């Protein structure tokens, strides 16, 4: 729909100042609306997003420190600390796509009263790319060979290769600019020791930190130095963490103690009920690129293979490499029901691993949106995958279709597992369910057999997404050389061990292509290629669900950036 505006429209966005976007915004004195209460049921452990990449840390920090550009609720770029968005057209991006030059807005002050300069951006780059620093957001500086301060307000980022999509460094809430003066002594290994700075970064944002209690509560107060007149509307913000999603929602929707609750991943019926019975809150949803999907192991995970299991050396999976099996499994799933039960308004059915931004979303696979168990049965029957020994389980060339289906421990995932298991049972495929604690599953410990990378199972389910709006790096995940294995300490993002030369070629092609439309075309092609291999079965396009009190105005739910990205514009309505 907004194919054109997606990136090209960046220029247009410059004209659209945030203040104008909220033309109806309540004007007035800074701090006039008193107190704002936000509840995140997972509490932030630090306010330095470079030290912990968790959503809760990044979003809480987004009230204080800011990037050059943010994405708005449509995934469009909005200049934030930058005056405008550099493009090839306006000369901000060099023709050879290797440099991008940013200009800071004029008169931006840190909350301590010192001016924001290009040096701060340069320092931020040094800070996050320091080899001993363990910066959680280092990927935003991938390919950046240098960041220079041309003058006080001009920042030049140079890439070591042409970068068709150069809006990574200093873009989005995960890559904000920190103050050099504050963090100068915190480079590298010393980064974690600067507790005061990490817990109370000085920022340019609408609020400054009054008190930070790790894993508990943060108190913010309005930043007197904030560049926009009359903002923020609230004098103080309490950012409470802890508890559970239901309780958080209850506090906003039923008792009215809080104004904003984040990530309400609870039973949709309960959610609907609370909204209705309390009548105090509004649910807000935003979709990004998160897709809950099944990965079908393309290698043989049999425990008999010992060390070699689930590696390329183990050879192909006995039956999951046949797209027919995958297709039948996919057809048997009622995605809409999964949405209804686990996600409600926070999810939609999808048949793509790359569901958004809309420009990149393929429509070639939409058949999967409707469950068709009979069709799936027929498909298997046609291909001779039948139950030959009468035990209710089909055999594939003599191998019974029994799968070990694992995921992380999470109530919704277990419900999904149970449902899918039942459908597959109907189909004649037996599934053994297994769930692993998230910290282990996603922990990446090379010695643990239960990480999602090791994939000692036939099928695993989790959500993945990509930050920002450009899918290049995301789609590159499924290159052959990204297959995890002992050689790479099980690092690698091609979890289902999909390998296709044509696909790798498309990845390379995309890295060379600058035209956004062409890029979108390639991305869709890659998406379809994976979909048709049925090595990934996408289930649900997941969105963020939050709720805000009806008395809170100005909320624009956003999944491309921090969801409280525009907290500066929030205000108390008359209600």
């Amino acid at each position: 729909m907004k194919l054109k505006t997606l990136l090209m429209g960046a220029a247009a966005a410059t004209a659209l100042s945030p203040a104008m976007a909220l033309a109806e915004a309540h004007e007035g004195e800074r701090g006039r609306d008193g107190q704002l209460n936000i509840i995140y049921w997972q509490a932030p452990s630090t306010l330095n997003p470079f030290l912990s990449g968790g959503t809760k840390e990044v979003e809480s920090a987004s009230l204080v420190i800011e990037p050059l550009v943010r994405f708005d609720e449509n995934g469009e770029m909005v200049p934030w600390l930058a005056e405008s968005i550099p493009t090839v057209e306006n000369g901000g991006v060099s023709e050879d796509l290797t440099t991008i030059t940013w200009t800071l807005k004029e008169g931006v002050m840190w909350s301590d009263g010192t001016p924001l300069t290009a040096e701060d951006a340069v320092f931020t780059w040094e800070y996050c790319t320091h080899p001993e620093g363990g910066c959680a957001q280092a990927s935003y500086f991938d390919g950046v060979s240098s960041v220079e301060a041309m003058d006080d307000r001009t920042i030049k980022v140079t890439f070591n290769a042409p970068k068709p999509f150069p809006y990574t460094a200093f873009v989005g809430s995960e890559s904000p600019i920190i103050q050099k003066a504050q963090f100068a002594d915190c480079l590298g290994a010393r980064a974690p020791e600067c507790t005061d700075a990490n817990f109370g970064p000085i920022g340019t944002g609408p609020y400054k930190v009054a008190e930070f209690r790790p894993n508990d509560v943060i108190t913010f107060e309005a930043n007197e130095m904030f560049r926009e007149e009359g903002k923020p509307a609230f004098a103080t913000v309490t950012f409470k963490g802890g508890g559970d999603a239901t309780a958080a929602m209850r506090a906003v929707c039923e008792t009215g103690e809080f104004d904003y609750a984040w990530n309400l991943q609870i039973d949709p019926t309960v959610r609907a009920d609370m909204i209705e019975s309390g009548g105090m809150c509004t649910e807000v949803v935003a979709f990004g690129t998160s897709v809950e999907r099944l990965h079908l192991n393309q290698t043989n995970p049999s425990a008999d293979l010992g060390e070699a299991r689930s590696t390329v050396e183990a050879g192909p999976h006995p039956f999951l490499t046949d797209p027919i099996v995958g297709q039948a499994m996919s057809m048997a799933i009622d995605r809409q029901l999964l949405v209804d039960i686990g996600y409600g308004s926070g999810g939609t059915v999808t048949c793509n691993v790359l569901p958004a931004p809309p420009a990149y979303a393929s429509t070639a696979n939409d058949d999967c949106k409707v469950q068709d168990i009979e069709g799936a049965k027929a498909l298997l029957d046609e291909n001779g995958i039948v139950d030959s020994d009468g035990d209710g389980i089909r055999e594939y060339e003599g191998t019974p279709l029994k799968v070990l289906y694992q995921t992380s421990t999470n109530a919704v995932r277990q419900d999904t597992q149970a449902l899918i298991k039942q459908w597959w049972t109907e189909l004649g495929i037996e599934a053994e369910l297994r769930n692993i604690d998230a910290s282990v599953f996603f922990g990446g410990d090379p010695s643990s057999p239960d990480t999602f990378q090791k994939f000692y199972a036939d099928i695993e389910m989790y959500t993945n997404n990509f930050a920002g709006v450009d899918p290049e790096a995301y789609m590159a995940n499924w290159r052959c050389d990204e297959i995890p294995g002992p050689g790479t300490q099980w690092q690698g993002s091609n979890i289902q061990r999909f390998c296709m030369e044509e696909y790798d070629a498309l990845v390379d092609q995309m890295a060379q292509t600058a035209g956004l439309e062409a890029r979108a075309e390639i991305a869709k092609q890659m998406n379809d290629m994976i979909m048709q291999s049925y090595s990934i079965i996408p289930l649900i396009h997941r969105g963020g669900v939050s709720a805000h009190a009806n008395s809170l105005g100005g909320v624009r739910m956003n999944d491309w950036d921090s969801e409280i990205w525009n907290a500066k514009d929030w205000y108390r309505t008359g209600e």
Partner: protein
Amino acid sequence: MLNYTLRRLLISVPTLLIISLAIFLLLELAPGDPMAQVPLTVPPEVKQKMREALGLGEPVPVRYWKWLVQFFWIEPLNMIDNIFGTAFAAGEQRVLSWQTRSPVMDLVLQRMPQTLWVVGMSYIVGVAIALPIGIYSAYKQYSVFDQAGTFVSMIGYSVPPFFSGVLVIVIFSVQLGWFPSIYDTTHRVVDWDTFVVQLQQMVMPVMVLALQTTAQISRFMRASMLDNLNQDYVRTARAKGMTEQVVVMKHVLRNSMIPVVTVIALGVPGIFGGAIITEQVFKVNGIGQLLITAIQANDLPLVQTLTFIFAVLIVAFNLIADILYGILDPRIRYD
């Protein structure tokens, strides 16, 4: 008595060392990874570096020794520095939480007020309710009051707090709107109104927790009273013509309190660790909640330090209980 105390103190040193080693080794086996919370988009090399930055590269004995030095030497020095403004511990590496990268002791101190307010108060309330119930139940054994008391205390013991907690929230916060459902840890009591607010937000967690304390202590008090009510000295006191009040509230109570006081003392460490669930339910982000988040985040230094602090508290209160016993009971001679 002094000898005895010294001896117990001496014994507790190896006990604590063994406990700390046990906890350390146990955590060493942890399959989890502190990087679990880091998003999938972070490349593995970076994760590896982050891991090393946490000190995970060094061998186990070295880390254990480091932790011991940090806990037993540097942290106390820091405490002194904080109080007297000295700088003994300046520049020394303190025990750092992996998750927040801040000194673990700071976190603990930050969580202490909530825990003490809510959980400590619930203990006091619980004990204060339990003692009269226990005394009266024993005095009127098998009466209606006794039976009812038994029933209520059994209920208190039987209903898990995560059930009763949510129930009271739904009733008192959602339906009636009397009390807040989320505890505000930043609330400061400065005047009467803020005190009332503090009371309001404490009522529910305190009552839910106190119910359990009451259940246990009142049963104990009752049993202890019953034991003593049958003693010969009670008959003597009656034979002396003492009023029932003096007999029960002075002669019997004083004797019955001896075991009860020690049980109460032994229950104190539980305040810090045992309220994990209640803290979770009411969002009283205290020590218990700190521990559970640390466990979930694989924050081993924090988990280790917290469990060890619990162990120290338990050992300390065991000692206190023993000493109290000696003080309360003139018959006890420790030597």
